[in-house]
């Protein structure tokens, strides 16, 4: 009956939305933790795209996923060697 009253006043979010949100976050972590191969593939693609605009230090390039509170960010550290004047078409 208490639940009934709580629902009546609507001060508690439906637990299914909480479940969905928690799952969404935990799956980003699970999936990101899963494959270094995916991260390597991402690096290769990033280098390809960025090189069209600037020349970068490929050896010093860092790409990783960082976890803070309830968000996950893709953090890239890409030292630039030289800017290009126009976009290079590969």
């Amino acid at each position, binding site marked *: 009956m208490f639940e*009934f009253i709580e629902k009546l006043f609507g001060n508690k979010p*439906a*637990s*299914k*939305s909480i*479940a*969905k949100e*928690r*799952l*969404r976050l*935990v*799956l980003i972590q*699970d*999936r990101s933790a*899963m494959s270094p191969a995916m991260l390597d593939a991402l690096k290769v693609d990033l280098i390809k795209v960025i090189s069209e605009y600037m020349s970068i230090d490929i050896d010093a390039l860092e790409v990783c996923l960082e976890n803070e509170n309830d968000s996950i960010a893709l953090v890239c550290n890409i030292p630039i060697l030289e800017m290009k004047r126009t976009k290079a078409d590969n």
Partner: protein
Amino acid sequence: MSEVIVITSGKGGVGKTTTTANIGTGLASIDSTKKVVLIDTDIGLRNLDLVLGLENRIVYDIVDIVQGNCKIRQALIRDKKNENLFLLPAAQTKDKSSVSEAQMQDLIKNLREEFDYIIIDCPAGIEQGFKNAIAGAEKAIVVTTPEIGPVRDADRIIGLLEANGLAQPKLIINRVKQNLIKQGDMMEIIDILEILAVDLLGVVPEDESIVASTNRGEPAVLDQNSRAGQAYRNIVNRMVGANIPLMDLEEKNSIWKKFKDFINK
């Protein structure tokens, strides 16, 4: 041309074995020209024999076959009711490492000569038992329930299946409680499909009659009055190509149900 399908979930207790028993029994009963074999790969913790009611007929098991103690034919147990349906039981006193992936592939290759459907019941977990179960499979069905733990594990399993060449597994969502969904306390089917990004094979409602059918060793798919049985019949029909809409998950109207609905509004 035989179909080799593994039924898996990651998480234990979501209904893999019940699903295997019902799908196998269903496939064997809708088409009497097809031969079906169910393989229990849960070595050390076998259960499929109980769900099918065949536990008293086991003489040899899968480990006996790979160790050369018997021929495949000697270990196969014919179902009580359906003569096209067979069980290949797991060993109860050995462990998962008693069978290798190569041995599984070899066994399935031999079974292909005789059976149209080879359905593999996978153990919980992602270790050797899982690896064995998927080794010879060419299709996969993932079973989950609408809770965060099982869905998370299903996601992990889908990733592992895809990494092992079993792309596009089909999903069964088991034990769906429509009253909880209505009340906002259970994730909806569409939410789960969106999160897992796989195709849906079927939805099975929570049904207390499953307990009784397991007690008797008679899969619910044969019980015309069971709602879960109806859901499994729909799944089986979809597997053979029929286009069947999802069943209505509403409980049948009773005064008690109307009262509960009123309280839960």
